[in-house]
């Protein structure tokens, strides 16, 4: 309880100064971060001295061959993992020292099966501050309306009272996006959220996500292995090498928004995809050559 009080107390002054601060420094700064799993012979280096800056309001896609540590970066930023070496700064302060609102969606919808879709979406409001303090008072009013409005935006208007198992995979993923955004997070972390969906549903959800992002403008880190997805959604594409992951390309994508499926047929879009694909291919080839050496060491 005391901790929560202190946190709100610490939080009270910053809003006035926050805008200037965000111009001066990136929202997230990843500095020489390495991460090793396991120990001894089973040691696996997932990330090797990776650095990345993400300015406030940016939409960054992390792509790379599987196992390159792109999800690891996301988990470190979400504080689900701690780096073995290096530092992560959020809004200029060491991660953990500062509390920003984070929304996260995973490859699986990870909805709680015992809660209705609406209650699932309202979960961040129940748990995270400052919404938590008003939970009892607002859960049947303002918060409920907020969840319902968001669900309506992603096309789940009539499903608020349903349970997750009554919905298809694509619909569950829409609900999961709502849950990630309902508390208007400063930072949105997306870990291959559309990876398990079919092509058509995926493209539909790109538009849903783009619309929500343009409205709320959170800073986004999107991990994906779909190049078209990254080029369609992101302002910046960061390509990572095979394990241990390092950043090999940092590409800006400046197609006008809102982008549509038509964008994906433009020649420069196709050309960009083509170029990224060959870069990843090279990275994979280099990676597979490096693995025996790593085992020998």
């Amino acid at each position, binding site marked *: 309880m005391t901790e929560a009080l202190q946190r709100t107390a610490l939080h009270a002054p910053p809003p006035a100064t926050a805008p200037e601060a965000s111009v001066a420094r990136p929202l997230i700064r990843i500095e020489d971060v390495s991460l090793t799993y396991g120990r001894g012979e089973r040691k696996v280096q997932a990330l090797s001295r990776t650095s990345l800056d993400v300015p406030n309001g940016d939409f960054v896609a992390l792509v790379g061959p599987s196992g390159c540590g792109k999800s690891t970066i996301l988990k470190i930023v979400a504080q689900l993992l701690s780096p073995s070496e290096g530092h992560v700064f959020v809004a200029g302060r060491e991660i953990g020292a500062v509390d920003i609102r984070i929304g996260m969606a995973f490859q699986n919808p990870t909805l709680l099966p015992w809660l209705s879709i609406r209650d699932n979406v309202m979960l*961040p409001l129940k*748990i*995270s501050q400052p919404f938590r303090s008003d939970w009892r008072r607002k859960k049947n009013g303002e918060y409920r309306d907020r969840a319902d409005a968001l669900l309506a935006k992603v096309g789940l208007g009539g499903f608020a009272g349903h349970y997750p198992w009554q919905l298809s995979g694509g619909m569950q993923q829409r609900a999961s996006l709502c849950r990630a955004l309902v508390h208007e997070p400063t930072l949105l972390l997306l870990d291959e959220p559309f990876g398990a969906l079919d092509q058509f549903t995926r493209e539909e959800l790109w538009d849903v996500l783009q619309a929500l992002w343009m409205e709320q403008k959170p800073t986004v880190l999107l991990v994906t292995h779909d190049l078209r997805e990254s080029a369609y959604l992101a302002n910046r594409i960061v390509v990572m090498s095979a394990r241990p992951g390092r950043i090999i390309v940092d590409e800006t994508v400046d197609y006008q928004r809102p982008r549509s499926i038509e964008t994906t047929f433009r020649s420069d879009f196709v050309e960009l995809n083509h170029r990224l694909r060959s870069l990843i291919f090279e990275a994979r080839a280099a990676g597979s050559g490096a693995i025996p050496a790593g085992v020998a060491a």
Partner: protein
Amino acid sequence: MKRWYKERFASTALIVGFFLVWELACVAFGISEIVLPRPSQIIVTLFDRWPALVPHTVQTLYTTLVGFALGVGIGVVIGMIIGSSRVAYDVAFPLLVGLSSIPKVAVVPIFVLWFGAGTVPAVLTAMVISIFPVVVNVATGLATTEPELEDVLRTLRASRTDILVNVGLPRAMPYFFASLKVAVTLAFVGSVIAETVAGNRGIGNMMLIASANFNVPLTFAGLFILAAMGIGLYLVFAAIEKRVTGWANRKAELAMG
């Protein structure tokens, strides 16, 4: 729905058929009531002796329910402690398995030694016997919570208590209720054993005396009462389970493609 009715009808027919075969076999083979009384005799005895049977029934129900309630309370606490940490789970499990494999009849004399004959050993035996299934199920339910679901809460800066209350406990509910159904029938076993070994009241004690007097129909009447109480409590907990944990029994035909 049609299938449901068919199944209900079939199981009712099976029960009726069971008693019918019993009754007819006794008549056909001329089995003496000292060996195996006919169901009709048992029911007549049940009605004749009902006023005398009520206090015994109440006593058994009382010791069972008190023991069961204590057992569930203790079981939930132990289960939560063990289930909320991997280490506690691994460390405590061998001891629990060891304790649970002791036949509970064997502890009745110890309880009698400590507390004397009567109500207390019956309550304690019912308690001891119903702790284990609750502990195991609550601990398993908590320990098998998907880490992804916990991650959802951890990204929201949830405390350990938040995670337990919002993910762990709801997730463990189906396991908990499944264990209640098992535990309540076991609690009956516990209190009847204690009543038989060291009771002065209760259905178990009544059956012991009736069999010593070769009043076999009355002994069987005790059995019928126990069966009826066991079924009754099982149904109560099954109904509560269905209301509280309906989400766990998802039906495929309701899901959409």
